[in-house]
């Protein structure tokens, strides 16, 4: 059985045919070709697939595509346009990524942290990122990046 689903992805209306069991991340990657969102596990633990749904961070492996009917989805491809988002820039300045696989999820998750808590402490950053696993960085530079990104976002005046 296939169903039709329509949602706004990175500002554009996108429509596709999915099975009831199709996950949002499968729709993004396989149907729309937005391969910046990654799949790192099958138990909703690693956070490589984090995107924003209606402004909030969501593990897109934990949501069915049809549950996003009518929603507005933002993926890593849509976060920056001409210039990097301050959080992306902070990850780059602070070497907050190595292999890059967990990075889109980390960045999307971090942007949502700053939305809910504009001035997080190091402890709060570490707690927030508990659902995003990185095997390369030991988190040291990710935490540094998120703190720098939060400061830069505050300076940019609530740039989202």
């Amino acid at each position, binding site marked *: 059985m296939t169903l039709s689903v329509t949602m706004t992805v990175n500002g554009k209306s996108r429509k596709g045919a999915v*099975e009831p*069991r199709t996950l949002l991340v499968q729709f993004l*990657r396989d149907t729309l070709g*937005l*391969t*910046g*969102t*990654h*799949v*790192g*596990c*099958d*138990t909703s*633990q*690693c956070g*490589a697939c984090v995107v924003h749904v209606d402004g909030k961070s969501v593990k897109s492996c934990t949501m069915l595509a049809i549950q996003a009917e009518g929603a507005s989805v933002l*993926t*890593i*491809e849509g*976060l*920056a346009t001409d*210039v*990097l988002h301050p959080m*992306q820039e902070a*990850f*780059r*300045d602070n*070497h907050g*990524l*190595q*292999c*890059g*696989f*967990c*990075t*889109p999820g980390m*960045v999307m998750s971090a942007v949502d942290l700053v939305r809910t808590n504009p001035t997080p402490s*190091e*402890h709060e*950053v*570490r*707690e927030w*990122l*508990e659902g*995003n*696993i*990185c*095997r*390369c*960085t*030991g*988190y*040291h*530079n*990710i*935490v540094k990046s998120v703190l720098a990104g939060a400061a830069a976002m505050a300076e940019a005046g609530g740039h989202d």
Partner: protein
Amino acid sequence: MTDSDQSGAIGTPLRRKEDLRFLTGQGRYTDDFNRPGQLHAYILRSPHAHATIGAIDSAAATAADGVVAVYTGTDMATAGIGGLPCGWGITDKHGKPMVEPGHPVLAQGKVRHVGDPVAVVIAETRDQAKDAAELIEIDYGTLPAVVETVDAIQPGAPLVFDEAAQNTCYEWEIGDQGAVDAGFARAVHVAKLDLLNNRLVPNAMEPRAALGDFDAGTGDYTLYTTSQNPHVIRLLMGAYVLHLPEHKLRVVAPDVGGGFGSKIYHYAEEAIVTWAAGQLKRPVKWTADRSESFLSDAQGRDHVTHVELALDENAKFLALRVSTVANLGAYLSTFAPAIPTILYATLLAGTYTTPAIHCAVRAVFTNTIPVDAYRGAGRPEATYVVERIVDVAARQLKLDPAELRRRNFIAKDAYPYQTPVALQYDSGDYFATLDMALKAADYAGFEARRQEAASRGKLRGIGIATYIEACGIAPSKVAGALGARAGLYEAAEIRVHPTGSVTVFTGAHSHGQGHETSFAQVVSSGLGIPVANIDVVHGDTAKIPFGMGTYGSRSLAVGGSAIVKAMDKVIAKGRKIAAHLLEAAEADIEFKDGQFTVAGTDRSKSFGEIALTAYVPHNYPIEELEPGLDETAFYDPKNFTFPAGAHIAEIEIDRDTGVTSVIRFTASDDFGRIINPMIVEGQVHGGLAQGIGQALFENAVYDKASGQLLTGSFMDYCMPRADDLPNFDVSNNVTLCTHNPLGVKGCGEAGAIGSPAAIMNAVADALAPLGLGPVDMPATPEKLWRLIQSHRPAQAAE
């Protein structure tokens, strides 16, 4: 979003070139590739640890919606497909070759571990393949399984292979047993310890994937795969498994999401999708679920060791005696035999002058997932043995562990230093890195912090580990004599384009290490051109001359040296062209900062002018010199490199919960010359997280009766998370490698090598006032809580 402003000088923390694509979702990992007409493969794996395979009924699966083909081990055998080869042969202590059983691509007759691949279903969609796999009926005859390392050698243990008596692959030894016995005979003190080095799951964040493609018009095969070394895969798969010549087989390892060793090896799925693409004349893709990664990626460590250290009246080490049983799992993975031997026992001198060392290793098969190199590969195991027993000796002799180490360090002026276990260290200064770490960790102030923690009811401990690492296995001739079935050089090509920009082709492979940046810095410094004008290309056998890939912290020491050698050739040719243009003798041409200059004059030509002349040879010494500026070099190292350092962990154990918190972690390392300090620090951070993970969190646990991997997901296998770790204090002391042109030693694995022993020495230190210990890794809350609960005040006095 360009980066043309960045200086590329060696030693500058240049922001990474590769980051722009990773940060914007433009990275291209294997699973991101899709080919027109692509089919999807699903691998059906054994649910049993040990069983005979009877009839396989795949009729219903073959008839299911979307299914194009179902293949089993019998089909592979009929097609003449070979087994997965082992790349390293060990000769045992009696001079006989190791037992080397076959490793079929799909199991034939028997399955030997949970997750052993049995059949592949290929369908239009992945879900269809997966659904159909459930329809395959297999008549398994279950057999008793052997899971634990020490159980494998017990009389009557189930045999994984009939040809491997007592499940033994080899018994191997190194060192002078007589000299060791003599050392123990005159010892004033002997320290003894039994240790487990826990089995780990590498868990690179990108699950393995493979996409096979076949061009029916040309007969060319292409494999996209998550590999650290595409040429090695091409060689092994082409020559041994599919019998395809190299010129008809292209292997691409695009962006790869971490490896840590687990993506070195040639895996069954790579051969299956490549072969199936040829059979079906359509591309075939396979991507692992994380659960599959747990059951099919080679795992790491898993040693059971007894160690004894003999000391004289001045606490100088006289002799070290080590006996290890190493678990290889159910099959020989590509480099498995080398890990608990050549890469382990040769490191047992550590940073010390121990004059006599003997190590006996017995490697065993079990009904578990194969074990091979994982970050550090043998060297963390060796460091753990040495540094734990040194601490035990210090405690027993009531000596400061730092002082005992200093007393036994190899002297600063003793290089080159020949150890009793084959290696010759070229350079180092272990006193300097230890002093640096002690100072940074405020070692002197620790007792006050212990008291303060005690007032809060916490057990605080500090632990030191020094380590030595041997990187860039070499030279090829020596590696060959030790059993390597491949050369261990590296290749590079420097292609200078007519307008002076440069493409560097390297046989090393980057899966997070930042080669596109650090290698560009090497070339920028060497040729005097901006980093923005340099691209580093890796991971494609159709583009790179050849390459052995990236593992063992070899990329810069071996691959970087090949780049320097190729640059030297470019500069030598450029000098000839410049001499012609400037009407000077070649010997008078100097090359510096991108300018070819007649010595002592201001007459010069830029690198760009020389490049253009090479491709537009109107005024050119065409009789003596070919046009063009494109040079290839292969570099075979003269020796290993020997990074070293000192790690200090400070931890607190909560007596009520058994939870260990890492309060502070200090690492002072010597990696030789540093090209990009930002990248080096990042490498250390990541290694530390994996080492701390091994010490406190991670453990691959198998059910002893059934052989099921109990820790088969991120919900069961404890990966270190952001809130489990502290910030790290990382510093460097540089002594140059003496035998490669950059003076570099390698930094990729060090963090994972020193840290487990540092953490566990800190745990031992925290528990010492209670008279408790020793504790094996991982020091989980449950383990420590039980231990602390068992403690009675009467036992406290030590």
